[in-house]
């Protein structure tokens, strides 16, 4: 009985190690192709447009509403303790948006939109032999399909997060000035005073890491998918779930690394 339990746990542990080992090797293989010619610029531009341009509306809306709701909820909290809300809310909005919500919300939205599409596209290519066809046409599938997407994710997410940060802070400003009646000049001054370079930089580093994770999981699950439409569906789900969990996990790790002191 005890041996059965140990065997089951052991098998599970081996399976987990094998999976993440496989993901790690896939990532290294993909990244290594960025430094070895040829580089497929058209594939990069296509993936970049998908990440940055076509994700902009959904990321923008998420950022604006996130900034608005933070301003609203923090005012409610401060009102309970009769604290000076005017300068504190600006600080809270800036810190929350730039350090956490900007990168995390943008990451989650892009994982749902681009990561899923990437997994579905590569999965369909896999099950319809298009990936094998690339190999027969003197083209390395990882170099052609994976490397440009990884680079696009790493570059596009920081740009998206810059926009998300701006719009998130603007959302807080709108609620603070229009609904809560704060003085716009005072609020803006508090916002600029609260913003520190390290917060912005770490937010952008997080965004680059999240972009890489989204592209990696979308490519990995799609590239490894098997078994027709059901396999592609499973790959799509797995890519979104894995990318979302990894984004939150790495958010904690990076926050611990940069802000714990």
């Amino acid at each position, binding site marked *: 009985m005890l041996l059965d339990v140990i065997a089951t746990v052991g098998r599970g542990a081996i399976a987990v190690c094998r999976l993440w080992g496989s993901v790690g090797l896939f990532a290294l293989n993909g990244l290594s192709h960025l430094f070895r010619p040829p580089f497929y610029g058209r594939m990069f531009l296509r993936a970049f447009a998908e990440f940055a341009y076509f994700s902009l509306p959904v990321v923008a809306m998420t950022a604006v509403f996130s900034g608005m709701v933070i301003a609203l909820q923090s005012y409610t909290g401060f009102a309970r303790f009769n604290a000076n809300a005017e300068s504190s809310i600006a600080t809270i909005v800036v810190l929350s948006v730039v350090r956490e919500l900007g990168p995390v919300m943008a990451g989650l939205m892009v994982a749902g939109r681009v990561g899923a599409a990437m997994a579905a596209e590569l999965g369909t*290519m896999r099950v319809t032999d298009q990936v*094998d*066809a690339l190999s027969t046409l003197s083209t390395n599938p990882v170099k052609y399909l994976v490397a440009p997407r990884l680079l696009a994710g790493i570059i596009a997410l920081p740009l998206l997060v810059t926009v998300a940060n701006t719009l998130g802070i603007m959302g807080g400003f709108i609620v603070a000035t229009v609904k809560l009646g704060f003085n716009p000049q005072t609020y803006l001054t508090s916002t600029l005073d609260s913003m520190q370079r390290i917060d912005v930089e770490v937010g952008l580093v997080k965004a680059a890491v999240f972009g890489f994770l989204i592209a990696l999981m979308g490519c990995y699950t799609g590239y490894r998918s098997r078994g027709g439409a059901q396999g592609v569906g499973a790959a799509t789900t797995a890519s979104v779930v894995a990318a979302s969990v990894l984004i939150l996990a790495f958010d904690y790790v990076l926050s611990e690394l940069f802000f714990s002191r």
Partner: protein
Amino acid sequence: MTDTTPKIRIRGLRKAFGEKQVLDGVDLDVMHGTSMVVIGGSGSGKSVLLKCVLGLIEPDEGTIEIDGRDLLALDRREREAMRAQIGMLFQNAALFDSLPVWENVAFGLLAQRKTSRAEARAKAAEILAQVGLAASVGELSPSELSGGMQKRVGLARAIAAQPDILFFDEPTTGLDPIMGAVIDGLIVDCVKRLGSTAVAITHDMASAIRIGDRAAMLHKGRIIWQGPADTLMESGNPVVDQFTHGRREGPIQMELRS
């Protein structure tokens, strides 16, 4: 390489997936400039055999020689160079649906970076004409084509780089008999024009006889018969005869679960 050296020589090829032994010691020779058709039931390992030769699947044991050079003993660059000599028509054509037809056809030429995009486009139109398609088809997306047209485009893509070896995986599957005959005719024409060595796998007997100079049957992971393709229907081998005539009774027992 001498004239008697087969273009493709396969010896003792074995490949298992889990406990299922798909290829169990395949021996096969394909002579230069000939067309070999490999027949066999669904799941008999025909596609696995082709993918092993293409390097898409690593066999467990055995040797695959092309022009007398063992493919499995070559390093990555040499293997890629060898692979560039092979053109492949996939069962479902496997066209890249994110690219227009002309770019599909010229993909191999562009990948080798030996030609500009403008030249590749003109070359694609030329090759499309060879498979009976107008240059205007080149501007369409693969999803806008019928099954027969997709096969033609797949064939055009396979022959674009003028390969020494051509592989055809179930070239007539999913096509009506007339379109199947048209595709077979195009395959024979292309192979003759290029002087290539061809290997086709199929379970369409009419197609096998039209395409092949020689035929072989893969059964239970081994080549159990080979001979001239025009003797396929009267091979004298009970397993081959049952398969080619589609008889329910005979030595081949349908496995309910493998």
